[in-house]
């Protein structure tokens, strides 16, 4: 039996004005377990708290009921008071007789009556309270960042800056991601490489950061603070630690006609290659599907010219196991396939290109050394048509486009159009748009500059069809404001293609038990208040894997994710919320129903032996709640048929006791 003290607060006249506090404390004194009762003007004041502390000591109280304001206001206060008095803080219950009683009811009689009932319910509940101790789990002080684009780079740098080791896993031979392929960045027009490559070098030189390039995450086990990850380091047939990145092998490699993915296939690379001059790590990689030596053992030139002896044709995939306290997903995006949009003749003409290809065409390190030339005949284009929203905002058919707005296209198209007009004033530039969306600092000003200062022709309407004829592209489009159909003979058509999450995101989400939306973007723990966390504890989101984002937004989210990770890694131990679910193993059926409703993947199953009445042992499958992962929503407790699953602090018996007390 509990020894309960009841403390009724007046809250000045806030409560005492409508509730007869004396009558309430009198009425509650006969409730089961109550051994002490009093009322006071301000229970939350130091003097009020002292009354509680003294009463606990004097009357050996085991439970406290405070009839006062909302628990959302002062539950934490009174829990600390209980702890100061030597009681378990979870032996406190609050009856909300202010916000939900004195403030909403007018007459003293009904207010007092209700306050008594609420007090009784709290007493009934505290009678069934048990001391709760938050569970603790150790934290591995190392973070994993999956994806080495600008999002992953920024997150890793920030975490490393706080002194924690970080590993970056990147599937490509180099970090840098999409930003490394860009020419200039909006709205300031600084060159992407100039601002990105120093950061890449910082990563390479930071002794807290390890880069696993040309690698993939193979398996993830464990939970927040204690992830157990297997990383597959694909064989690149070059010893990374020996290769100096001199490029002699690349120069001599006889396989010259391999489409260069860094330039989106607009020029060629060799079978052994370094993606670009500032690659990090700057080491060569052999493409096994193109290398003659690996395919049929006939060649070996690179090995002969490598003075460092870095070539190793026998290299195998390597598997690395590492423990992490936190995981950051930064898997980024890709433009969608244009196969289903051939009204724009992307597959029919080399001169219809995507915006990312356009970036490479204007980039000094690109296939044309930065000269804007048509891919088909390397002539200077005089009329360029940009088409926005290609595949974005497309709700007609799911396999074709994406229903969402890709967010970045309006701005980069304005940038492209502006740059063309700046460098080649003799060029006619048309931009076809549905809406121009420029919410962002200096964004609209930038777009207006493209129109007003650079004379880019913005036309509200869509391109319906592109027809290659001779060396021209006949563009048919509508101009909705002029009420005309336009037929433009263009030299180059640039498509602002919708972006989608990287294909690796979904299998990764499965490994992480992190949730995704129907478009395969990762979902946030809360769309407004926890935007960089996944609902799965210890998993954080950085960059476009969570939704379309431009560089400034990506970087700020990357730093935000890093700060969340740091906040986790500075802790030696994780204290959980003790109000979590737990399964009574004797009653558990092992049916998996609870695990099916758990949004956090907190429930796993083990086979366990139980002694039977006939002294034999029986093995049964039973649920285990991971206290570090469970957030205490209680979905499992209702899903559980047998009632084996219960929630501490909100146990079925406690809630039923409250129901009974209210309905008595």
């Amino acid at each position, binding site marked *: 039996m509990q020894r309960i003290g009841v403390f009724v607060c007046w809250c000045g006249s806030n409560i005492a004005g409508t509730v007869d506090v004396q009558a309430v404390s009198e009425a509650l004194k006969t409730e089961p377990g109550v051994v002490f009762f009093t009322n006071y003007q301000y229970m939350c004041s130091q003097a009020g708290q002292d009354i509680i502390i003294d009463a606990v000591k004097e009357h050996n109280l085991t439970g406290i009921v405070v009839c006062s304001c909302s628990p959302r206001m002062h539950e934490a206060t009174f829990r600390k008071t209980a702890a100061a008095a030597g009681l378990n803080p979870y032996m406190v219950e609050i009856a909300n007789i202010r916000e939900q009683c004195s403030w909403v009811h007018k007459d003293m009689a009904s207010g007092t009556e209700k306050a008594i009932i609420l007090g009784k319910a709290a007493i009934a509940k505290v009678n069934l309270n048990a001391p709760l101790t938050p569970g603790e789990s150790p934290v591995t002080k190392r973070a994993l960042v999956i994806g080495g684009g600008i999002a992953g780079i920024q997150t890793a740098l920030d975490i490393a800056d706080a002194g924690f080791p970080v590993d970056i896993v990147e599937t490509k031979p180099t970090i840098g991601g999409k930003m490394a392929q860009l020419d200039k960045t909006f709205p300031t027009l600084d060159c992407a490489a100039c601002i990105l490559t120093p950061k890449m070098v910082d990563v390479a030189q930071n002794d807290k950061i390890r880069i696993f390039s040309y690698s993939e995450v193979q398996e993830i086990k464990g939970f927040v603070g204690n992830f157990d990850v297997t990383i597959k380091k694909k064989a690149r047939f070059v010893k990374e630690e020996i290769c100096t990145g001199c490029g002699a092998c690349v120069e001599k490699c006889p396989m010259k006609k391999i489409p260069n993915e860094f330039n989106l296939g607009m020029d060629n690379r060799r079978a052994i290659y370094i993606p670009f001059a500032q690659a990090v790590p700057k080491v060569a990689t052999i493409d096994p599907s193109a290398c003659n030596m690996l395919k049929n053992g006939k060649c070996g030139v690179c090995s002969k010219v490598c003075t460092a002896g870095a070539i190793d044709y026998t290299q195998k995939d390597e598997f690395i196991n590492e423990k992490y306290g936190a995981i950051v997903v930064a898997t980024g995006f890709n433009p969608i396939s244009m*196969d289903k*949009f*051939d009204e724009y003749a992307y597959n*029919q003409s080399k001169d219809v290109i995507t915006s990312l290809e356009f970036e490479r065409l204007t980039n000094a390190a690109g296939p044309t050394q930065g000269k804007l030339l048509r891919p088909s005949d390397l002539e200077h284009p005089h009329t360029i048509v940009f088409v926005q929203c290609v595949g974005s905002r497309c709700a007609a*058919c799911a396999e074709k486009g994406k229903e969402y707005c890709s967010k970045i296209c309006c701005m980069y198209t304005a940038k492209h159009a502006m740059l063309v007009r700046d460098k080649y004033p003799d060029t006619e530039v048309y931009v076809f748009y549905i809406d121009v969306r420029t919410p962002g600092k200096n964004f609209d000003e930038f777009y207006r500059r493209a129109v007003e200062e650079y004379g880019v022709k913005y036309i509200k309407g869509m391109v319906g*069809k592109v*027809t*290659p*004829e001779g060396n021209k592209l*006949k563009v048919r489009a509508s101009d909705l404001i002029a009420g005309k159909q336009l037929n433009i003979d263009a030299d180059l058509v640039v498509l602002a293609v919708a972006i989608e999450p990287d294909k690796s995101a979904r299998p990764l989400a499965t490994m992480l038990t992190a949730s995704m939306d129907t478009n395969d973007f990762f979902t946030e723990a809360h769309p407004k208040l926890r935007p960089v966390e996944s609902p799965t504890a210890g998993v954080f989101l950085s960059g476009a894997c969570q939704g379309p984002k431009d560089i400034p937004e990506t970087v700020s989210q990357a730093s935000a994710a890093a700060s969340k990770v740091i906040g986790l890694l500075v802790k030696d131990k994780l204290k959980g919320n003790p109000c979590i679910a737990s399964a009574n193993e004797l009653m558990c059926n092992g049916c998996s129903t609870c695990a099916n409703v758990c949004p956090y993947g907190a429930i796993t199953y083990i086979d366990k032996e139980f002694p039977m009445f006939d002294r034999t042992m029986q093995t049964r499958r039973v649920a285990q709640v991971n206290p570090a992962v469970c957030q205490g929503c209680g979905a499992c407790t209702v899903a559980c048929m047998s009632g084996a699953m219960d929630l501490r602090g909100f146990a079925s018996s406690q809630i039923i006791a409250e129901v009974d007390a209210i309905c008595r």
Partner: protein
Amino acid sequence: MKVSYFPGCTLKNKAKILDVYARRCAEVLGVTLEEIDNWQCCGGVFTSKDEPGSKLSSVRALKFAFEKSQPLVSVCSACHNVLKQTNHLMQSDEAFCTKVNRYMAEDSAYDGSTQVYHYLELLRDVVGFDKIREAVVNPLKGRKIAPYYGCLLLRPSSVMQMDDPENPTIFEDLLRALGAEVVVSSMRNECCGGYVTMEKPEFAKKKSLDITSNMQAMGADMIATACPLCKYNLDKNSDAIPTVYFTELLAEALGVKEECDNA
């Protein structure tokens, strides 16, 4: 193999030769086209679904094929479009299906389960282009041919499902199998203006010229089509390059053209 065959009115009149080539070539490739008994005109155009009366002739043809457990094949693009769209409605629109069956008042109801093929699909999916390539005796070497689909074969793509509506390859693949050099023009799925040829001939002419001049510019010296109305329009409105039925090219490659022409 035997299939049900819906020739359509034009193939019995102005486009007889299209029909003759189609039958003979099918024979050569091991398929017999069995003409449906007492078929009626499809109406030439598929109009809105609240006019079940205008779809009855199509449903009768579809049901006929269904009762013989055969797929229904047609050569004319317009017939194929009407049959395929009607069949799709019978499958997907319960109210329409019920209404049509009530109109027909036959012993058994029809539910849209007949497989509807255009002759091109028959060649691709049933015969197979590889088999055709083997059967070619007279390859169309050095002929630069631009296939022309028009609208009816491809759209609405969600129903017709013949090929990618913006970048189809079925026609190209066939012509390649016949040994021709294919000229791909992105005007191949543009409308020739067929339905307004009576209403406003000068407009139809403009549309047709857009197509033929593009194909000519892309290097074609001949256009191939499946639709009599398209052929009429393109031929009438352009002196530059001729338009022929694809079945004629097929007959030529299979070495049966002359016997057809003399038949």
